[in-house]
């Protein structure tokens, strides 16, 4: 909010650069993991996915949190606004992802185990 940060000029800019640094570090970690793909992370499976992919997704959600809270200034908004935006998205996206991925796994099983010729 305009009047909140007006007298804390220095700290607002400082926080922006701090968040930029955090985002950069997380991105670099992702890129390094993506290039080297440590074997133990690829071979460990949790809930249908490699541990490495879970790490990527968690880091991505963390980056999304940083961008929304610091850059889009969600931390300074009222609780009502924050909840009406964030909870709606989180709930609907979780639902959508669950339905579509569960269906994708099912169709893969039909391809793999059903009497369907596809490799010709």
């Amino acid at each position, binding site marked *: 909010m305009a009047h909140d940060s007006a007298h804390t000029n220095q700290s607002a800019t400082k926080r922006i650069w701090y968040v930029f640094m955090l985002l950069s570090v997380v991105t670099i970690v*992702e890129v390094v993991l993506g290039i080297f793909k440590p074997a133990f992370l690829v071979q460990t499976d949790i809930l249908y996915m490699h541990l490495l992919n879970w790490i990527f997704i968690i880091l991505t959600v963390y980056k999304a949190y940083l961008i929304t809270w610091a850059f889009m200034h969600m931390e300074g908004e009222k609780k009502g606004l924050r909840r009406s935006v964030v909870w709606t*998205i989180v709930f609907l996206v979780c639902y959508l992802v669950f339905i579509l991925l569960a269906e994708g796994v099912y169709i893969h099983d039909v391809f793999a185990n059903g009497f369907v010729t596809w490799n010709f």
Partner: protein
Amino acid sequence: MEATVAQTGTEGKTWGGGNKPLGASYGKLMMWFFIASDALTFSAFLAAYGFSRFKFIDSWPIADEVFNHFPFLHGVDAPMYYVALMTFILIFSSVTMVLAVDAGHHMNKKKVTLYMFLTIIGGLVFVGSQAWEWKNFINGTYGAVETRGGQILQFVDTDHERVALADFAKALPQDRVEHQPSNGVWYDADKQTSASFTVEEITKGFEANPNILVRIQQLDENGKKIVLSREASLAKLKNDAVTTVEGANLTHNEYGPPLFADFFFFITGFHGFHVSMGIILNIIIFFNVLVGTYERRGSYEMVEKVGLYWHFVDLVWVFVFTFFYLV
């Protein structure tokens, strides 16, 4: 008559009207709700991508092999670097945007102008980078052969390094007859007649080079594409191959399932469209800042609103980056 302005006795109470429960201006609130609905659109695209990915979980293209170009490094295998650079460009333009918003809070016209300008430059560089990425994706690198069932056969040498079609295919003498419009252009609009090599030429060249093998789409247990033996390769090529595929379009691509290219074009295209719109909005606001519109209005909230949109575009790219290039 005082019927039209009836007192309800609720003035000053919670439901009496006049208070702002969300503490945000109309414009900002609507921008937030637009962002929420747009976020659902993008999540639907990415979830649909996930659906196809899980459906073809053991034959999906490996992103590191598809996106491995870097400017000025021809033929060097550089996975991830370019897209990481693009990500940094976009994050940095987000930083300059939030700095512009912050400068707006202090009514500092000079700084807002500078940071808005940098943001626009960052956006333009990003869209340009995306165009280059598309160019590489559409042109392809190695070329492949497609089977009747739509499976892609790629070629590798004995060290399992990729080999381009041009490196081994034999040019055969043949009569290429120019297709006349009088013969009806629409009847064979699907036929890929412009490929550099025909399947016969590739098969001939394959027979002449004993150290070339066929690599199929399926992955082994280590997540590597399966390479067939020489005999199996030859049989596969002779019995199943029907067309040559070079690069990518919406119906065929040399990387794997057509869906992979479809989603790539659609999701990165839709995101690129958002970035382009953001650049246009930023330019409009930039000129408004220049002519002093917000200085006279006494508030730079407009910069804040367009900033929300710009950060959202960055936010979407963070997810696209993860699901297209990392996972």
